[in-house]
């Protein structure tokens, strides 16, 4: 359902007058209703790849096909309307816009409290307490993250891209997050791409892609890749092995 063909992405370092290659000729296929986790060291290009899928960044070269359609030149909202959704690693705050407002914009309809409750309770939030809260600094990072995930769930898109959903959330939220992802995988409705460092999330994957230095270092079924990652991880490094963000 998603094909990335020879994606490269470069940025220009103005100070050094040099071009830096963030992604190098990355090709990847995501099947219908599959659950793919992209992992790898920090700075390897994972989040950039996620943004390229959503259209937030445009590749320097290469093509992106979604359900057979070339979407490389499409803008963010055009891709969103085709059925691609995205959660930010650092959720955006808005003065004045409430949880209800954003869910209305996400679903393009006014939802009743009981309808909102379905999505908010899934991420451990009580609709009655949250629907009229502004998406501002009064909400914690964990609450924002959960609202972000609820918004994407409410959209019911064909392809959901989560950029490090575990970043900045507390232990309770993390446990809940894992349950949400397990449910998404079991539902088999649409495909999911998660950028993550967490073993608990890697365990849910059908397919694991390892990106390092802007290239795909490994790709394959979880059963094949995960044991390799865990055995390669040096003793001094808790990367992948962390059970929760707090332990990481």
């Amino acid at each position, binding site marked *: 359902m998603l094909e990335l063909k020879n994606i490269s992405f470069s940025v220009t370092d103005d100070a050094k007058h040099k071009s830096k290659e963030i992604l190098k000729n990355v090709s990847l296929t995501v099947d219908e209703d599959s659950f793919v986790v992209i992992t790898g060291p920090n700075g390897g290009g994972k989040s950039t790849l996620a943004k390229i899928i959503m259209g*937030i960044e445009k590749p320097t070269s290469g093509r992106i096909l979604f359900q057979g359609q070339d979407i490389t030149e499409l803008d963010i*909202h055009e891709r969103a309307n085709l059925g691609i959704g995205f959660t930010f690693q650092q959720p955006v705050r808005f*003065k004045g*816009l*409430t949880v209800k407002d954003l869910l209305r*914009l996400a679903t393009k309809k006014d939802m009743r409290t009981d309808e909102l409750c379905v999505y908010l309770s899934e991420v451990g939030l009580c609709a009655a307490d949250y629907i009229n809260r502004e998406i501002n600094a009064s909400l914690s990072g964990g609450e924002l993250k959960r609202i972000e995930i609820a918004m994407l769930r409410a959209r019911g898109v064909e392809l959901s891209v989560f950029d490090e959903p575990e970043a900045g959330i507390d232990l309770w939220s993390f446990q809940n997050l894992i349950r949400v992802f397990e449910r998404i995988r079991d539902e088999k409705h649409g495909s999911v791409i998660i950028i993550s460092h967490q073993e608990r999330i890697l365990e849910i994957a059908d397919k694991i892609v390892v990106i390092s230095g802007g290239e795909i270092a490994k790709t394959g079924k979880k059963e094949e890749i995960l044991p390799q990652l865990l055995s390669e991880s040096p003793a001094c490094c808790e990367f992948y092995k962390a059970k929760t963000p707090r332990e990481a």
Partner: protein
Amino acid sequence: MSNAQTAYSEDVQDMLKVIADLTGPPAGAYNIRVDGKSVGRQSSSNIEIKSKENGQGIEIYVRPGTKGEFVHIPVVVDQSGFSDIVYNDFYIGEGADVDIVAGCGIHNDGTHLSQHDGIHTFHVEKNAKVRYTEKHYGEGNGSGERVLNPVTVVHLEENSYLEMETVQIEGVDSTKRVTNGDLKDGARLVIKEKLMTSGKQRATTEFNVELNGVGCSANVMSRSVAKGESFQAFYSKIDGNNVCAGHSECDAIIMDNACVKAVPEITANHVDASLIHEAAIGKIAGEQITKLMTLGLSQSEAEKEIVKGFLK
């Protein structure tokens, strides 16, 4: 008057809907002023509205202990070139709890300047509560300017409370809004301003608050959006003269070639005066637009929703 709506032109009816949410004569006390004349008035058993002896406005008397009643006093200027000045005095009796809905709309299809200056003075007695809403709006196809210069003076007695919400979203070419307040022991003043300017419009806001009583407090909040070539200036002056708390916040979104100036001033004349001011001016954050675009909104739709939410 049996029906406030039928007596007026369509423009006036539209304006009354926008500024006071009226589609007919309101329940309770009201005074409707069109082009400098009172065209509809009603007192209630607890609220008396009468003309000033000098004919330059009205006096509104709310009996002590009156609860849950509304007073509507909308003003419409429908005649191009008309300049109106009115002095309205409110006397809110001890322990009363009322809502006052004011507002002014100017419809100017002509080439001459139309102006309304409303000077409202509130005397709020002990333990009384007032929620005061004021909407300003301008429209019309003429080249004549639409000018509104409201002045609000608030005297708050012990443990009284006044919450003022002022909204000016569009169509006013020039406005200078001045609000002065003085507070006695335990009194509270909350002001929420929402303002949007576009084109070559100019808007100046001045808040002057004297926190005189023990334990009194004021919270002045302004949210504004400046578009096009418009200019906004926000001056907020809070003096803490006793054990008191004062907070002033100006938050502005600037777009296009607009200019926004914020000058908050706080003065503590007492060691236990706790005063805070905050002012932030900036364009819409790019990441906010990106976020809404990931939900399927175009860039212009995203900007519109962000502004709408900000001024909600």
